[in-house]
Protein backbone atom coordinates (compact mmCIF):
# COMPACT_ATOMS: atom_id res chain seq x y z
CA UNK A 1 0.00 0.00 0.00
CA UNK A 2 2.42 2.62 1.23
CA UNK A 3 5.14 1.77 -1.23
CA UNK A 4 2.66 1.89 -4.11
CA UNK A 5 1.99 5.59 -3.47
CA UNK A 6 4.28 8.14 -5.10
CA UNK A 7 3.67 10.52 -2.23
CA UNK A 8 2.56 8.94 1.02
CA UNK A 9 1.49 10.91 4.07
CA UNK A 10 0.69 8.70 7.08
CA UNK A 11 -0.70 9.91 10.38
CA UNK A 12 0.96 13.32 10.22
CA UNK A 13 0.19 15.63 13.15
CA UNK A 14 1.56 19.03 14.04
CA UNK A 15 1.00 21.15 17.12
CA UNK A 16 2.10 24.70 17.82
CA UNK A 17 1.79 25.04 21.58
CA UNK A 18 -1.80 24.27 22.47
CA UNK A 19 -3.06 24.66 18.90
CA UNK A 20 -3.35 21.51 16.81
CA UNK A 21 -2.68 22.51 13.23
CA UNK A 22 -2.67 19.05 11.67
CA UNK A 23 -4.37 16.01 13.14
CA UNK A 24 -3.36 12.56 11.85
CA UNK A 25 -3.41 13.41 8.17
CA UNK A 26 -3.36 10.52 5.67
CA UNK A 27 -2.88 11.23 1.99
CA UNK A 28 -1.67 8.88 -0.74
CA UNK A 29 -0.99 10.22 -4.19
CA UNK A 30 -0.27 8.32 -7.37
CA UNK A 31 2.48 9.39 -9.73
CA UNK A 32 1.24 12.10 -12.10
CA UNK A 33 -1.74 12.94 -9.93
CA UNK A 34 -2.86 16.52 -9.26
CA UNK A 35 -4.33 16.98 -5.79
CA UNK A 36 -5.63 20.18 -4.21
CA UNK A 37 -5.70 20.89 -0.50
CA UNK A 38 -8.78 23.08 -0.23
CA UNK A 39 -9.94 24.89 2.86
CA UNK A 40 -10.36 28.21 4.62
CA UNK A 41 -7.39 30.03 6.11
CA UNK A 42 -6.18 28.35 9.27
CA UNK A 43 -7.33 24.87 8.24
CA UNK A 44 -3.75 23.59 8.13
CA UNK A 45 -3.38 23.24 4.35
CA UNK A 46 -0.27 25.40 4.06
CA UNK A 47 1.31 23.66 7.06
CA UNK A 48 0.70 20.28 5.39
CA UNK A 49 2.35 21.60 2.22
CA UNK A 50 5.34 22.80 4.22
CA UNK A 51 5.57 19.42 5.96
CA UNK A 52 5.69 17.74 2.55
CA UNK A 53 8.36 20.23 1.41
CA UNK A 54 10.38 19.60 4.57
CA UNK A 55 10.19 23.21 5.74
CA UNK A 56 8.16 22.14 8.78
CA UNK A 57 8.81 18.95 10.68
CA UNK A 58 5.75 16.95 11.70
CA UNK A 59 5.40 15.89 15.35
CA UNK A 60 4.20 12.42 14.41
CA UNK A 61 3.64 10.43 11.27
CA UNK A 62 5.71 9.42 8.27
CA UNK A 63 6.26 10.75 4.78
CA UNK A 64 7.40 8.86 1.73
CA UNK A 65 8.23 10.32 -1.65
CA UNK A 66 9.19 8.45 -4.81
CA UNK A 67 9.90 5.28 -2.88
CA UNK A 68 12.06 6.91 -0.17
CA UNK A 69 11.21 7.58 3.44
CA UNK A 70 11.68 11.35 3.70
CA UNK A 71 10.20 11.86 7.17
CA UNK A 72 13.48 13.13 8.64
CA UNK A 73 15.08 14.30 5.41
CA UNK A 74 15.95 18.01 5.16
CA UNK A 75 14.24 19.95 2.35
CA UNK A 76 17.40 20.28 0.26
CA UNK A 77 17.62 16.52 -0.22
CA UNK A 78 13.94 15.81 -0.89
CA UNK A 79 13.84 16.91 -4.52
CA UNK A 80 10.61 18.89 -4.29
CA UNK A 81 9.71 21.98 -6.28
CA UNK A 82 7.75 24.73 -4.55
CA UNK A 83 5.97 27.68 -6.14
CA UNK A 84 5.39 30.17 -3.33
CA UNK A 85 2.56 32.65 -3.01
CA UNK A 86 5.05 35.53 -3.08
CA UNK A 87 6.99 33.65 -5.83
CA UNK A 88 10.15 34.17 -3.73
CA UNK A 89 12.28 34.89 -6.80
CA UNK A 90 15.88 35.83 -6.10
CA UNK A 91 16.13 39.59 -6.75
CA UNK A 92 19.89 39.53 -7.35
CA UNK A 93 19.61 37.06 -10.25
CA UNK A 94 18.01 37.43 -13.68
CA UNK A 95 15.33 35.09 -15.05
CA UNK A 96 17.80 32.48 -16.31
CA UNK A 97 19.81 32.75 -13.09
CA UNK A 98 16.71 31.99 -11.04
CA UNK A 99 15.78 29.01 -13.19
CA UNK A 100 19.35 27.68 -13.16
CA UNK A 101 19.71 28.09 -9.37
CA UNK A 102 18.75 24.53 -8.42
CA UNK A 103 20.66 23.05 -11.34
CA UNK A 104 23.85 24.91 -10.39
CA UNK A 105 23.64 23.38 -6.92
CA UNK A 106 23.59 19.93 -8.50
CA UNK A 107 26.92 20.78 -10.16
CA UNK A 108 25.75 19.70 -13.60
CA UNK A 109 27.94 20.54 -16.62
CA UNK A 110 27.43 24.12 -17.81
CA UNK A 111 26.13 23.15 -21.25
CA UNK A 112 23.59 20.79 -19.73
CA UNK A 113 22.34 23.49 -17.36
CA UNK A 114 21.97 25.97 -20.20
CA UNK A 115 20.05 23.46 -22.30
CA UNK A 116 17.72 22.63 -19.41
CA UNK A 117 17.10 26.29 -18.62
CA UNK A 118 16.24 26.95 -22.25
CA UNK A 119 13.89 24.00 -22.36
CA UNK A 120 12.04 24.95 -19.15
CA UNK A 121 11.78 28.60 -20.17
CA UNK A 122 10.29 27.49 -23.48
CA UNK A 123 7.79 25.38 -21.55
CA UNK A 124 6.48 28.50 -19.77
CA UNK A 125 6.88 30.75 -22.85
CA UNK A 126 9.57 32.97 -21.37
CA UNK A 127 12.51 32.21 -23.73
CA UNK A 128 12.69 35.86 -24.77
CA UNK A 129 13.03 37.14 -21.21
CA UNK A 130 15.96 35.00 -20.00
CA UNK A 131 18.25 37.99 -19.42
CA UNK A 132 15.65 40.19 -17.72
CA UNK A 133 16.08 41.23 -14.11
CA UNK A 134 13.25 40.02 -11.89
CA UNK A 135 11.96 43.46 -10.99
CA UNK A 136 11.32 44.21 -14.67
CA UNK A 137 8.71 41.43 -14.90
CA UNK A 138 4.93 41.58 -14.52
CA UNK A 139 3.18 39.49 -11.88
CA UNK A 140 2.15 36.87 -14.44
CA UNK A 141 5.70 36.62 -15.78
CA UNK A 142 7.12 36.29 -12.27
CA UNK A 143 4.65 33.49 -11.66
CA UNK A 144 5.98 31.69 -14.74
CA UNK A 145 9.59 32.16 -13.64
CA UNK A 146 8.72 30.70 -10.23
CA UNK A 147 7.10 27.74 -11.98
CA UNK A 148 10.08 27.30 -14.31
CA UNK A 149 12.50 27.43 -11.37
CA UNK A 150 10.52 24.76 -9.53
CA UNK A 151 10.23 22.50 -12.60
CA UNK A 152 13.86 22.88 -13.71
CA UNK A 153 15.20 20.48 -11.06
CA UNK A 154 12.73 17.81 -12.23
CA UNK A 155 11.23 17.41 -8.76
CA UNK A 156 9.42 14.31 -7.57
CA UNK A 157 6.49 16.52 -6.61
CA UNK A 158 5.63 20.16 -7.34
CA UNK A 159 3.96 22.08 -4.53
CA UNK A 160 1.92 25.22 -5.16
CA UNK A 161 1.22 27.44 -2.16
CA UNK A 162 -1.66 29.71 -3.22
CA UNK A 163 0.52 30.28 -6.24
CA UNK A 164 -2.17 31.81 -8.43
CA UNK A 165 -3.86 33.98 -5.84
CA UNK A 166 -1.82 37.11 -6.57
CA UNK A 167 -2.85 37.19 -10.23
CA UNK A 168 -5.92 39.10 -11.38
CA UNK A 169 -9.00 37.04 -12.08
CA UNK A 170 -8.76 36.82 -15.86
CA UNK A 171 -5.08 35.86 -15.87
CA UNK A 172 -5.69 33.41 -13.05
CA UNK A 173 -8.39 31.56 -14.94
CA UNK A 174 -6.27 31.34 -18.08
CA UNK A 175 -3.30 30.19 -15.99
CA UNK A 176 -5.34 27.45 -14.29
CA UNK A 177 -6.15 25.79 -17.58
CA UNK A 178 -2.65 26.26 -19.00
CA UNK A 179 -0.96 25.04 -15.84
CA UNK A 180 -3.08 21.92 -15.71
CA UNK A 181 -2.26 21.12 -19.35
CA UNK A 182 1.43 21.78 -18.76
CA UNK A 183 1.66 19.62 -15.64
CA UNK A 184 -0.28 16.80 -17.30
CA UNK A 185 1.90 16.94 -20.40
CA UNK A 186 5.13 16.51 -18.43
CA UNK A 187 3.55 13.96 -16.12
CA UNK A 188 4.22 15.99 -12.98
CA UNK A 189 2.81 15.07 -9.61
CA UNK A 190 1.51 18.22 -7.96
CA UNK A 191 -0.13 19.43 -4.77
CA UNK A 192 -1.98 22.73 -4.82
CA UNK A 193 -2.98 24.68 -1.76
CA UNK A 194 -5.87 27.06 -2.26
CA UNK A 195 -9.00 28.48 -0.69
CA UNK A 196 -10.49 29.05 -4.14
CA UNK A 197 -13.00 26.28 -4.91
CA UNK A 198 -13.09 27.05 -8.63
CA UNK A 199 -9.33 26.71 -8.84
CA UNK A 200 -9.61 23.39 -7.01
CA UNK A 201 -12.31 22.10 -9.33
CA UNK A 202 -10.39 23.19 -12.44
CA UNK A 203 -6.94 21.96 -11.48
CA UNK A 204 -7.32 18.72 -9.63
CA UNK A 205 -7.81 15.04 -10.14
CA UNK A 206 -8.73 14.85 -6.49
CA UNK A 207 -9.54 17.45 -3.87
CA UNK A 208 -8.82 17.16 -0.16
CA UNK A 209 -11.22 19.41 1.74
CA UNK A 210 -9.45 20.44 4.91
CA UNK A 211 -11.16 21.69 8.04
CA UNK A 212 -9.60 22.31 11.45
CA UNK A 213 -6.45 20.35 10.73
CA UNK A 214 -8.21 17.31 9.27
CA UNK A 215 -9.07 16.12 5.79
CA UNK A 216 -12.89 16.07 5.77
CA UNK A 217 -13.10 14.43 2.38
CA UNK A 218 -10.67 13.33 -0.31
CA UNK A 219 -12.46 12.76 -3.59
CA UNK A 220 -12.58 13.67 -7.25
CA UNK A 221 -14.30 17.00 -7.99
CA UNK A 222 -17.55 15.41 -9.19
CA UNK A 223 -17.99 13.16 -6.17
CA UNK A 224 -17.06 16.02 -3.88
CA UNK A 225 -19.73 18.21 -5.40
CA UNK A 226 -22.47 15.59 -5.73
CA UNK A 227 -21.79 13.61 -2.56
CA UNK A 228 -20.04 15.82 0.00
CA UNK A 229 -19.04 13.73 3.00
CA UNK A 230 -19.58 16.42 5.63
CA UNK A 231 -21.73 19.50 5.92
CA UNK A 232 -18.48 21.52 5.87
CA UNK A 233 -17.49 20.04 2.50
CA UNK A 234 -21.00 20.82 1.29
CA UNK A 235 -20.84 24.45 2.31
CA UNK A 236 -17.27 25.04 1.17
CA UNK A 237 -17.73 23.76 -2.38
CA UNK A 238 -20.56 25.19 -4.45
CA UNK A 239 -23.91 26.65 -3.45
CA UNK A 240 -26.27 24.76 -1.19
CA UNK A 241 -29.66 25.08 0.44
CA UNK A 242 -29.69 23.74 3.99
CA UNK A 243 -32.20 23.27 6.78
CA UNK A 244 -31.70 21.81 10.21
CA UNK A 245 -34.18 19.30 11.55
CA UNK A 246 -34.74 16.10 13.49
CA UNK A 247 -35.25 12.58 12.19
CA UNK A 248 -38.78 11.40 13.08
CA UNK A 249 -38.83 8.10 11.23
CA UNK A 250 -36.30 5.98 9.41
CA UNK A 251 -35.90 2.70 7.55
CA UNK A 252 -32.97 1.31 5.51
CA UNK A 253 -32.15 3.87 2.82
CA UNK A 254 -34.61 6.50 4.03
CA UNK A 255 -35.03 9.03 6.80
CA UNK A 256 -37.98 11.31 7.39
CA UNK A 257 -37.00 14.65 8.87
CA UNK A 258 -39.10 17.33 10.50
CA UNK A 259 -37.83 20.83 9.81
CA UNK A 260 -39.29 24.21 10.71
CA UNK A 261 -40.37 24.58 7.07
CA UNK A 262 -41.98 21.17 6.67
CA UNK A 263 -41.32 17.45 6.42
CA UNK A 264 -38.54 16.15 4.13
CA UNK A 265 -37.19 12.77 3.14
CA UNK A 266 -33.55 11.85 2.54
CA UNK A 267 -32.13 8.66 0.95
CA UNK A 268 -30.02 7.54 3.90
CA UNK A 269 -30.91 5.97 7.21
CA UNK A 270 -30.26 8.01 10.34
CA UNK A 271 -31.23 7.16 13.92
CA UNK A 272 -34.69 8.40 14.78
CA UNK A 273 -34.45 11.40 17.07
CA UNK A 274 -31.04 12.57 15.87
CA UNK A 275 -30.45 16.19 14.91
CA UNK A 276 -29.47 16.53 11.28
CA UNK A 277 -28.86 18.99 8.49
CA UNK A 278 -30.76 18.41 5.28
CA UNK A 279 -29.53 20.03 2.08
CA UNK A 280 -29.60 20.06 -1.66
CA UNK A 281 -27.85 21.83 -4.51
CA UNK A 282 -30.00 24.68 -5.90
CA UNK A 283 -29.82 23.38 -9.47
CA UNK A 284 -31.90 20.35 -8.49
CA UNK A 285 -34.79 22.54 -7.33
CA UNK A 286 -37.79 23.44 -9.47
CA UNK A 287 -40.86 25.60 -8.90
CA UNK A 288 -44.56 24.71 -8.91
CA UNK A 289 -46.95 21.91 -7.97
CA UNK A 290 -47.25 20.72 -11.57
CA UNK A 291 -43.64 19.58 -11.69
CA UNK A 292 -43.74 17.55 -8.49
CA UNK A 293 -43.49 13.78 -8.71
CA UNK A 294 -43.78 11.05 -6.07
CA UNK A 295 -40.01 10.94 -5.68
CA UNK A 296 -39.73 14.62 -4.76
CA UNK A 297 -39.39 16.61 -1.58
CA UNK A 298 -41.45 19.78 -1.52
CA UNK A 299 -41.65 22.87 0.64
CA UNK A 300 -43.79 26.00 0.58
CA UNK A 301 -42.11 29.39 0.38
CA UNK A 302 -42.45 33.01 -0.64
CA UNK A 303 -40.72 34.57 -3.62
CA UNK A 304 -38.39 37.21 -2.15
CA UNK A 305 -36.50 38.32 -5.25
CA UNK A 306 -36.34 37.72 -9.00
CA UNK A 307 -33.27 38.47 -11.10
CA UNK A 308 -33.54 38.31 -14.89
CA UNK A 309 -30.19 37.38 -16.47
CA UNK A 310 -31.11 36.91 -20.13
CA UNK A 311 -30.80 33.16 -20.70
CA UNK A 312 -32.18 32.48 -17.24
CA UNK A 313 -33.98 33.99 -14.30
CA UNK A 314 -32.96 33.50 -10.69
CA UNK A 315 -35.91 33.19 -8.37
CA UNK A 316 -35.00 33.56 -4.71
CA UNK A 317 -37.48 31.78 -2.47
CA UNK A 318 -37.67 32.29 1.27
CA UNK A 319 -38.41 29.02 3.06
CA UNK A 320 -38.62 29.50 6.83
CA UNK A 321 -35.49 31.48 7.55
CA UNK A 322 -33.43 29.97 4.70
CA UNK A 323 -33.21 31.10 1.10
CA UNK A 324 -33.16 28.89 -1.98
CA UNK A 325 -32.32 30.33 -5.38
CA UNK A 326 -34.07 28.43 -8.17
CA UNK A 327 -33.02 28.82 -11.80
CA UNK A 328 -35.70 29.18 -14.48
CA UNK A 329 -35.29 29.55 -18.23
CA UNK A 330 -35.24 33.28 -19.03
CA UNK A 331 -38.22 32.99 -21.40
CA UNK A 332 -40.65 31.44 -18.96
CA UNK A 333 -42.65 33.78 -16.77
CA UNK A 334 -41.18 34.10 -13.29
CA UNK A 335 -43.64 34.30 -10.38
CA UNK A 336 -44.10 37.81 -8.95
CA UNK A 337 -42.25 38.84 -5.82
CA UNK A 338 -44.29 38.06 -2.71
CA UNK A 339 -46.22 35.17 -4.23
CA UNK A 340 -46.55 31.83 -2.50
CA UNK A 341 -44.81 29.01 -4.37
CA UNK A 342 -43.99 25.37 -3.94
CA UNK A 343 -40.38 24.29 -4.40
CA UNK A 344 -39.50 20.70 -5.13
CA UNK A 345 -36.40 18.58 -5.66
CA UNK A 346 -35.73 14.86 -5.98
CA UNK A 347 -35.33 12.88 -2.78
CA UNK A 348 -32.37 11.20 -4.50
CA UNK A 349 -30.61 14.59 -4.60
CA UNK A 350 -31.22 15.26 -0.93
CA UNK A 351 -28.16 15.26 1.31
CA UNK A 352 -28.24 14.57 5.03
CA UNK A 353 -25.52 15.13 7.65
CA UNK A 354 -25.36 14.78 11.39
CA UNK A 355 -25.72 18.16 13.10
CA UNK A 356 -22.99 17.60 15.72
CA UNK A 357 -19.92 19.73 15.55
CA UNK A 358 -21.64 22.42 13.58
CA UNK A 359 -20.43 25.88 14.55
Amino acid sequence: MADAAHLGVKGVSKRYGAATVLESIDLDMARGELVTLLGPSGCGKTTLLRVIAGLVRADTGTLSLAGRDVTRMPPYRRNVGVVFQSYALFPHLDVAGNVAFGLNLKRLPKAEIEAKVRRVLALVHLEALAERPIRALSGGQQQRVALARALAVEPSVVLFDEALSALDRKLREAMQVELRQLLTSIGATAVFVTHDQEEALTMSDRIAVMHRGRIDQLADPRTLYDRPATSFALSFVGQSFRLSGRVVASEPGLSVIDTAAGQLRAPKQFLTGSDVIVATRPEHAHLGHATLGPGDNSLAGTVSNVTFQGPRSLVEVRIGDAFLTVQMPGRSAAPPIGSEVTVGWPIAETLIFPAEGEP
Partner: protein
Amino acid sequence: MKTAALILSAVLAVAACVFLLAPLVVVVLASFSPTPVFDLPTTGASLRWYGRIANLEGFWPALGLSIEVAAVSTALALVVGTLAAIAAVRGALPYADAFAALLVSPLMMPGLVLGIALLQYFRAVGFDAPLAGLLVAHLIVTLPYVARTMIAGLSRFDFTLIDAALTLGCTWRQAIFKVMVPALAPSFLIAGLFAFLASFDNYPVSIFLTDVRTKTLPIKMLQYIEEAPDPTIAAVSSLILLGTIVLLIIADRAVGLSRMAGTSD
Protein backbone atom coordinates in the same frame (compact mmCIF):
# COMPACT_ATOMS: atom_id res chain seq x y z
CA MET B 1 -0.28 81.57 -7.74
CA LYS B 2 0.91 78.08 -8.48
CA THR B 3 3.87 79.35 -10.49
CA ALA B 4 4.83 81.69 -7.67
CA ALA B 5 4.84 78.77 -5.23
CA LEU B 6 6.99 76.72 -7.62
CA ILE B 7 9.48 79.56 -8.06
CA LEU B 8 9.62 80.11 -4.31
CA SER B 9 10.29 76.44 -3.58
CA ALA B 10 12.96 76.33 -6.30
CA VAL B 11 14.66 79.40 -4.84
CA LEU B 12 14.57 77.89 -1.35
CA ALA B 13 15.99 74.60 -2.62
CA VAL B 14 18.85 76.37 -4.37
CA ALA B 15 19.49 78.52 -1.29
CA ALA B 16 19.64 75.42 0.91
CA CYS B 17 22.13 73.77 -1.46
CA VAL B 18 24.28 76.91 -1.56
CA PHE B 19 24.21 77.13 2.23
CA LEU B 20 25.28 73.49 2.54
CA LEU B 21 27.90 73.50 -0.17
CA ALA B 22 29.47 76.99 0.14
CA PRO B 23 31.92 76.00 2.92
CA LEU B 24 33.11 73.06 0.82
CA VAL B 25 33.65 75.34 -2.15
CA VAL B 26 35.68 77.72 0.00
CA VAL B 27 37.83 74.86 1.31
CA VAL B 28 38.49 73.54 -2.19
CA LEU B 29 39.33 77.04 -3.49
CA ALA B 30 41.61 77.69 -0.50
CA SER B 31 43.50 74.45 -1.19
CA PHE B 32 44.59 75.86 -4.54
CA SER B 33 45.60 79.21 -3.10
CA PRO B 34 49.15 80.31 -4.07
CA THR B 35 49.60 82.19 -0.81
CA PRO B 36 49.66 80.92 2.79
CA VAL B 37 46.81 83.25 3.66
CA PHE B 38 43.71 82.65 1.67
CA ASP B 39 41.71 85.59 0.33
CA LEU B 40 39.14 86.10 -2.37
CA PRO B 41 39.48 86.84 -5.20
CA THR B 42 42.48 84.57 -5.64
CA THR B 43 45.41 85.59 -7.77
CA GLY B 44 46.08 82.30 -9.57
CA ALA B 45 46.24 78.64 -8.63
CA SER B 46 48.89 76.44 -7.14
CA LEU B 47 49.30 72.82 -6.12
CA ARG B 48 52.04 73.58 -3.57
CA TRP B 49 49.83 72.75 -0.54
CA TYR B 50 49.02 69.34 -2.00
CA GLY B 51 52.74 68.76 -2.37
CA ARG B 52 53.23 69.51 1.31
CA ILE B 53 50.66 67.01 2.55
CA ALA B 54 53.01 64.05 2.28
CA ASN B 55 55.60 65.87 4.37
CA LEU B 56 53.24 66.75 7.21
CA GLU B 57 54.66 65.31 10.36
CA GLY B 58 52.63 62.26 11.41
CA PHE B 59 50.21 62.49 8.50
CA TRP B 60 50.67 58.99 7.11
CA PRO B 61 50.36 57.17 10.45
CA ALA B 62 47.24 59.19 11.27
CA LEU B 63 45.66 58.41 7.90
CA GLY B 64 46.61 54.75 8.26
CA LEU B 65 45.15 54.59 11.76
CA SER B 66 41.91 56.26 10.67
CA ILE B 67 41.44 53.88 7.76
CA GLU B 68 42.30 50.91 9.95
CA VAL B 69 39.90 51.92 12.73
CA ALA B 70 37.15 52.78 10.24
CA ALA B 71 37.60 49.52 8.32
CA VAL B 72 37.76 47.26 11.37
CA SER B 73 34.90 48.96 13.23
CA THR B 74 32.78 48.91 10.06
CA ALA B 75 33.44 45.23 9.53
CA LEU B 76 32.59 44.43 13.15
CA ALA B 77 29.52 46.66 13.03
CA LEU B 78 28.30 44.94 9.85
CA VAL B 79 28.43 41.53 11.53
CA VAL B 80 27.09 42.56 14.94
CA GLY B 81 24.59 45.08 13.54
CA THR B 82 23.17 42.63 11.00
CA LEU B 83 22.73 39.91 13.60
CA ALA B 84 21.10 42.41 15.96
CA ALA B 85 18.85 43.63 13.14
CA ILE B 86 17.79 40.03 12.38
CA ALA B 87 16.91 39.61 16.04
CA ALA B 88 14.96 42.88 16.03
CA VAL B 89 13.04 42.08 12.83
CA ARG B 90 12.58 38.30 13.03
CA GLY B 91 13.33 37.30 16.60
CA ALA B 92 9.75 37.69 17.87
CA LEU B 93 11.38 39.35 20.88
CA PRO B 94 9.30 41.00 23.54
CA TYR B 95 9.88 44.76 23.26
CA ALA B 96 11.46 44.36 19.80
CA ASP B 97 10.77 48.03 19.06
CA ALA B 98 12.52 49.13 22.23
CA PHE B 99 15.45 46.90 21.33
CA ALA B 100 15.67 48.45 17.86
CA ALA B 101 15.53 51.94 19.37
CA LEU B 102 18.29 51.02 21.81
CA LEU B 103 20.47 49.84 18.94
CA VAL B 104 20.11 53.17 17.19
CA SER B 105 20.34 55.31 20.34
CA PRO B 106 24.08 56.19 20.22
CA LEU B 107 23.14 58.22 17.14
CA MET B 108 21.12 60.56 19.34
CA MET B 109 23.69 60.85 22.09
CA PRO B 110 26.21 63.72 21.87
CA GLY B 111 29.60 62.29 20.91
CA LEU B 112 31.18 64.32 23.65
CA VAL B 113 29.11 62.55 26.30
CA LEU B 114 29.87 59.17 24.79
CA GLY B 115 33.60 59.98 24.68
CA ILE B 116 33.81 61.12 28.30
CA ALA B 117 31.66 58.20 29.45
CA LEU B 118 33.88 55.67 27.68
CA LEU B 119 37.05 57.32 28.97
CA GLN B 120 35.84 57.14 32.55
CA TYR B 121 34.50 53.64 32.09
CA PHE B 122 37.76 52.33 30.61
CA ARG B 123 39.65 53.96 33.50
CA ALA B 124 37.29 52.50 36.06
CA VAL B 125 37.60 48.93 34.76
CA GLY B 126 41.33 49.34 34.18
CA PHE B 127 41.13 48.85 30.42
CA ASP B 128 44.34 50.36 29.11
CA ALA B 129 44.75 49.65 25.40
CA PRO B 130 44.28 52.83 23.36
CA LEU B 131 43.80 51.12 20.00
CA ALA B 132 41.32 48.55 21.31
CA GLY B 133 39.50 51.27 23.24
CA LEU B 134 39.26 53.37 20.10
CA LEU B 135 37.88 50.37 18.18
CA VAL B 136 35.23 49.72 20.81
CA ALA B 137 34.23 53.39 20.76
CA HIS B 138 34.00 53.44 16.99
CA LEU B 139 31.99 50.22 17.02
CA ILE B 140 29.46 52.06 19.19
CA VAL B 141 29.52 55.00 16.78
CA THR B 142 29.10 52.88 13.64
CA LEU B 143 26.64 50.27 14.97
CA PRO B 144 23.55 52.51 14.77
CA TYR B 145 24.15 53.24 11.08
CA VAL B 146 24.42 49.55 10.30
CA ALA B 147 21.51 48.55 12.56
CA ARG B 148 19.21 51.20 11.13
CA THR B 149 19.99 50.35 7.51
CA MET B 150 19.83 46.60 8.07
CA ILE B 151 16.54 46.77 10.00
CA ALA B 152 15.08 48.67 7.03
CA GLY B 153 16.62 46.21 4.56
CA LEU B 154 15.49 43.14 6.49
CA SER B 155 11.94 44.37 6.92
CA ARG B 156 11.71 44.43 3.14
CA PHE B 157 13.47 41.07 2.80
CA ASP B 158 11.15 38.18 1.98
CA PHE B 159 12.29 35.31 4.19
CA THR B 160 10.44 32.92 1.89
CA LEU B 161 13.54 33.31 -0.31
CA ILE B 162 15.36 31.15 2.24
CA ASP B 163 12.62 28.50 2.02
CA ALA B 164 12.85 28.63 -1.76
CA ALA B 165 16.62 28.15 -1.63
CA LEU B 166 16.26 25.21 0.77
CA THR B 167 13.78 23.40 -1.47
CA LEU B 168 16.02 24.02 -4.50
CA GLY B 169 18.86 22.15 -2.83
CA CYS B 170 20.65 24.69 -0.62
CA THR B 171 21.78 23.75 2.84
CA TRP B 172 21.10 26.38 5.48
CA ARG B 173 24.58 27.79 5.15
CA GLN B 174 24.32 27.92 1.34
CA ALA B 175 20.91 29.59 1.58
CA ILE B 176 22.39 32.35 3.73
CA PHE B 177 25.43 32.95 1.53
CA LYS B 178 23.93 32.33 -1.89
CA VAL B 179 20.60 34.08 -1.35
CA MET B 180 20.26 36.21 1.76
CA VAL B 181 23.64 37.95 1.62
CA PRO B 182 23.52 38.77 -2.13
CA ALA B 183 19.88 39.85 -1.92
CA LEU B 184 20.80 42.19 0.93
CA ALA B 185 24.01 43.38 -0.75
CA PRO B 186 22.66 46.89 -1.43
CA SER B 187 21.80 47.28 2.26
CA PHE B 188 25.24 46.01 3.28
CA LEU B 189 26.91 48.48 0.93
CA ILE B 190 24.89 51.43 2.19
CA ALA B 191 25.34 50.44 5.82
CA GLY B 192 29.06 49.92 5.35
CA LEU B 193 29.53 53.23 3.57
CA PHE B 194 27.72 55.24 6.22
CA ALA B 195 29.50 53.40 9.02
CA PHE B 196 32.91 53.89 7.43
CA LEU B 197 32.38 57.61 6.91
CA ALA B 198 30.96 58.07 10.42
CA SER B 199 34.04 56.44 11.88
CA PHE B 200 36.54 58.08 9.54
CA ASP B 201 35.58 61.66 10.39
CA ASN B 202 34.67 61.12 14.03
CA TYR B 203 36.24 63.71 16.30
CA PRO B 204 34.28 64.16 19.53
CA VAL B 205 34.48 60.52 20.67
CA SER B 206 38.01 59.85 19.44
CA ILE B 207 39.52 62.90 21.14
CA PHE B 208 39.02 61.34 24.57
CA LEU B 209 40.45 57.99 23.69
CA THR B 210 43.59 58.78 21.74
CA ASP B 211 47.05 59.22 23.20
CA VAL B 212 50.24 60.68 21.74
CA ARG B 213 50.98 57.62 19.67
CA THR B 214 47.43 56.81 18.47
CA LYS B 215 45.96 59.86 16.77
CA THR B 216 43.32 59.62 14.09
CA LEU B 217 43.30 61.93 11.07
CA PRO B 218 40.60 64.39 12.24
CA ILE B 219 42.47 64.91 15.52
CA LYS B 220 45.77 65.34 13.72
CA MET B 221 44.19 67.85 11.34
CA LEU B 222 42.82 69.98 14.14
CA GLN B 223 46.23 69.92 15.73
CA TYR B 224 47.84 71.18 12.48
CA ILE B 225 45.37 74.02 12.25
CA GLU B 226 46.26 75.10 15.76
CA GLU B 227 49.99 74.91 15.01
CA ALA B 228 50.16 76.27 11.44
CA PRO B 229 46.95 77.49 9.83
CA ASP B 230 48.07 77.29 6.19
CA PRO B 231 46.05 75.79 3.31
CA THR B 232 47.67 72.34 3.67
CA ILE B 233 44.70 71.25 5.75
CA ALA B 234 42.38 72.62 3.07
CA ALA B 235 44.23 70.40 0.60
CA VAL B 236 43.80 67.37 2.87
CA SER B 237 40.11 68.19 3.26
CA SER B 238 39.71 68.49 -0.50
CA LEU B 239 41.27 65.07 -0.99
CA ILE B 240 38.95 63.53 1.61
CA LEU B 241 36.03 65.22 -0.16
CA LEU B 242 37.23 63.77 -3.47
CA GLY B 243 37.50 60.31 -1.94
CA THR B 244 33.98 60.57 -0.53
CA ILE B 245 32.61 61.66 -3.90
CA VAL B 246 34.27 58.68 -5.57
CA LEU B 247 32.75 56.35 -2.95
CA LEU B 248 29.32 57.88 -3.48
CA ILE B 249 29.58 57.51 -7.25
CA ILE B 250 30.51 53.84 -6.87
CA ALA B 251 27.61 53.34 -4.46
CA ASP B 252 25.25 55.13 -6.81
CA ARG B 253 26.29 52.88 -9.69
CA ALA B 254 25.81 49.83 -7.49
CA VAL B 255 22.53 50.59 -5.74
CA GLY B 256 21.32 54.08 -6.62
CA LEU B 257 21.61 57.20 -4.51
CA SER B 258 17.87 57.55 -4.05
CA ARG B 259 17.87 54.30 -2.08
CA MET B 260 20.73 55.55 0.07
CA ALA B 261 18.94 58.78 0.84
CA GLY B 262 15.91 56.72 1.76
CA THR B 263 13.69 58.59 -0.70
CA SER B 264 12.61 55.40 -2.44
CA ASP B 265 12.70 51.74 -1.65
